């Protein structure tokens, strides 16, 4: 307990002068008077002109932005199912359509063989060369390298998985059908194994499809690419029939497999809406607000929250790496502006990697578990925001969650904080320092930790501090985690002032032991990267400056905690890396083809 607590900062009481609406809080514990400098952000209801009655989506009605195989994907899946059905019918009823297909194949192959000419044969060999094993390998490795260079890892994984699946399907179908090569013609090119489905055609088609969906942006370019792939595969198929290597139906079945598997894999596992292929310098965490997504968000806001949105636009993208921040305009006047954070599967993946990294770096201290779905992630942030608000912290009012695509894409809607700047760009006075310290005190009293105290998450609006981004907040955090919040807040506040001033103000709210604990707990990676970057840019070691102000030296709190989980995770990651490195050559060069 501190003795001789000074009087409240002079700015306390100027709220009305600043024209802010809000609720003043009384000290909760009675011990630290600075808590009542906190003012909640006044909740501004959406204007009536921008509101409507929410509408429940009836069963069976598609969500605002449904998962989309598109008509072409459905057509290819339909073709694959039709082939499967025909084959099943052939097996079960002994129908003669199999013989009819072979007769038709024979007629075509015979016709082509009868028309063989030296020039045509040379041309056919040149075209069929494209589907040669070495040539397709070169194409495949090139495509994978290009995806790696573009850091398109998800596309790369989907491509590898799709190609392996194509290869497995080809083998299975081949084993099941056991079809010989074309009868009564001399094969003029190499072949291997049973004829149906044509392995070179299936692999070539799949490789081209993977390259198309992993490297070519959606739109005209991809459409042109599809046409090109169609022409090339068609030419190869014709050439192989001419050379007596394949029957036409062998190639057609191969094309169905080679197109359907990558197409479905990419559209379901790396959908363009979430993982767009583009070559601008846009951060991958940010989803593009395409016209379809724009309309879907507007529709979802109207149906689920009863908010009639006029416009949606990306907002302050530079400060957000974990979601796509949006400014939502509703009703056409300032009160109608809302803030949205769009979350999708890629953000969930980022969250998982982030938490895995922290578990490997720190061990059991963090006590973090990754979310298992986007829905859970967004629900948690909304819940944490409501907790912070209920605890009297100055946070934007939560409006709820909107579902865009079930289990894939959600929008967290909160109050927009207009005319606000990051604390790193604002003038920091004693009042603001006191507000920052009071925020941490309130978090401590409420049994919460924000866990991401950095300039980008502390806004200053008309001299008042607003805490944003509750994504990492923790209920009943470890004492270490709470101490880190305090140190990070003091470091942020000292960025544009002096450590002695911040320290003196902190002593009004925290004991010297608590402050010492904070700086003993905080160092290096426990500080947000933005904070570390700003300190480096200033060339100041604020952490050391604070430690010098402490009455006695502090011993760093060990942040390396080993547990069975951490040891297991570390071993698993090392094993996965070793396995990947060991299998990379086979994966890239040989086995997939």
């Amino acid at each position, binding site marked *: 307990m501190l003795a001789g607590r000074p009087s409240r900062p002079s700015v306390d009481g100027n709220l009305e002068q600043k024209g802010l609406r809000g609720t003043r809080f009384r000290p909760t514990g009675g011990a630290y008077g600075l808590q009542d400098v906190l003012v909640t952000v006044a909740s501004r209801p959406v204007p009536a002109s921008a509101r409507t009655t929410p509408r429940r989506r009836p069963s069976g009605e598609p969500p605002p932005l449904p998962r989309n195989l598109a008509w072409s994907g459905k057509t290819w899946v339909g073709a694959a199912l039709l082939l499967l059905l025909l084959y099943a019918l052939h097996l079960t009823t002994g129908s003669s359509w199999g013989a009819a297909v072979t007769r038709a194949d024979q007629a075509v192959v015979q016709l082509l063989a009868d028309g063989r000419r030296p020039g045509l044969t040379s041309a056919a060999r040149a075209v069929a060369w494209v589907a040669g094993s070495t040539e397709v390998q070169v194409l495949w490795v090139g495509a994978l390298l290009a995806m790696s260079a573009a850091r398109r890892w998800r596309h790369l994984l989907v491509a*590898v998985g799709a190609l392996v699946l194509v290869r*497995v399907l080809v083998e299975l179908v081949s084993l099941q059908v056991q079809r010989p090569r074309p009868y*009564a013609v001399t094969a003029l090119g190499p072949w*291997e194994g049973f004829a149906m489905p044509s392995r070179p055609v299936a692999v070539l088609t799949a490789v081209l499809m993977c390259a198309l969906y992993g490297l070519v942006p959606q739109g005209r370019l991809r459409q042109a690419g599809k046409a090109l792939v169609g022409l090339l595969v068609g030419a190869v198929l014709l050439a192989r029939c001419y050379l007596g290597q394949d029957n036409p139906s062998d190639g057609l079945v191969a094309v169905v497999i080679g197109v359907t598997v990558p197409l479905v894999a990419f559209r379901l596992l790396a959908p363009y809406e979430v993982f767009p292929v583009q070559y601008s310098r846009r951060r991958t965490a940010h989803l593009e607000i395409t016209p379809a997504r724009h309309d879907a968000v507007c529709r979802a806001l109207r149906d689920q929250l009863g908010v009639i949105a006029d416009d949606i636009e990306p907002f302050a993208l530079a400060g957000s790496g974990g979601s796509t921040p949006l400014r939502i305009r509703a009703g056409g006047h300032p009160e109608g502006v809302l803030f949205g954070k769009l979350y999708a599967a890629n953000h969930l993946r980022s969250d998982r990697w982030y938490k895995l990294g922290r578990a490997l770096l720190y061990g059991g201290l963090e006590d973090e578990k990754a979310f298992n779905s986007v829905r859970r992630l967004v629900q948690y942030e909304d819940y944490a925001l409501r907790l912070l608000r209920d605890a009297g912290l100055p946070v934007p009012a939560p409006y709820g969650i909107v579902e865009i695509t079930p289990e894939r894409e959600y929008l967290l809607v909160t109050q927009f904080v207009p005319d606000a700047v990051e604390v790193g760009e604002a003038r920091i006075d004693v009042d603001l320092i006191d507000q920052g310290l009071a925020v941490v005190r309130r978090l401590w009293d409420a049994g919460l930790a924000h866990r991401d105290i950095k300039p980008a998450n502390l806004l200053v609006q008309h001299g008042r501090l607003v805490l944003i981004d509750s994504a990492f907040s923790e209920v009943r955090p470890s004492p270490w985690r709470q101490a880190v919040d305090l140190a990070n807040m003091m470091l942020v506040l000292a960025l544009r002032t002096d450590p002695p001033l911040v320290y003196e103000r902190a002593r009004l709210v925290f004991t010297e032991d608590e402050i010492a604990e904070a700086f003993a707990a905080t160092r290096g990676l426990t500080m947000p990267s933005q904070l570390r970057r700003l300190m480096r840019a200033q060339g100041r070691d604020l952490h050391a400056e604070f430690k010098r102000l402490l009455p006695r030296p502090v011993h760093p709190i060990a942040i390396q905690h080993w547990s069975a989980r951490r040891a297991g995770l570390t071993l698993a990651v090392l094993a996965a890396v070793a396995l990947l490195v060991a299998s990379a050559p086979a*994966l890239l060069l040989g086995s997939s083809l």
Partner: protein
Amino acid sequence: MSRCGLALAVTILLSGCVQSSDLGVDAECGDAGQADNPVLTLMAQAVPSATLIPCVRLVPASWRHGEVDVRRGEASFAFASASVDSPDAVPVRVVLSDGCDVTGATEVPTDEPGTRRWERLRQVAPTYVGDRFYVFDGGCARLSFTLSGTDRVQAVGEASLAIGFTPRGVLQAAVRERGEGRWELDPSPGQR
């Protein structure tokens, strides 16, 4: 393990599974005069000049069916060891091609009608290593032995019982029958 990790592991495992060129079926001869095994038809297509197609008549007790690989110009099948001590061993591999180099081999009386037989012994102990050639019109079947164990010489003899030949004409007749007289295995003479 996360779903992503699991997918990666499955992918890598699956990628290893598809490396083999094994057709996954056996080159069994079938009943006398019957040729309903598509592998034999495919082997005949691989070596269009071969008048006899080697096949598996029966599998000796200590062996099992091995890899079958058919490509234009050559077809092969193998026996694998049934012993748990040497599961990767390939005691006999049979390769059909349009000709064989029998240099250094000794011609011996054949046990297969329509063929001439050569033997080339490379090593007897501790492992029996040698080749046997059956040469016939338009083709040759080479049997490569790599046999170990005390009964290895006996196993060489058993190979004669294990390997049989299906005449190309039987396969042609089978194709013709399947196509109701409209299909032919081989191109008509003179066709390019």
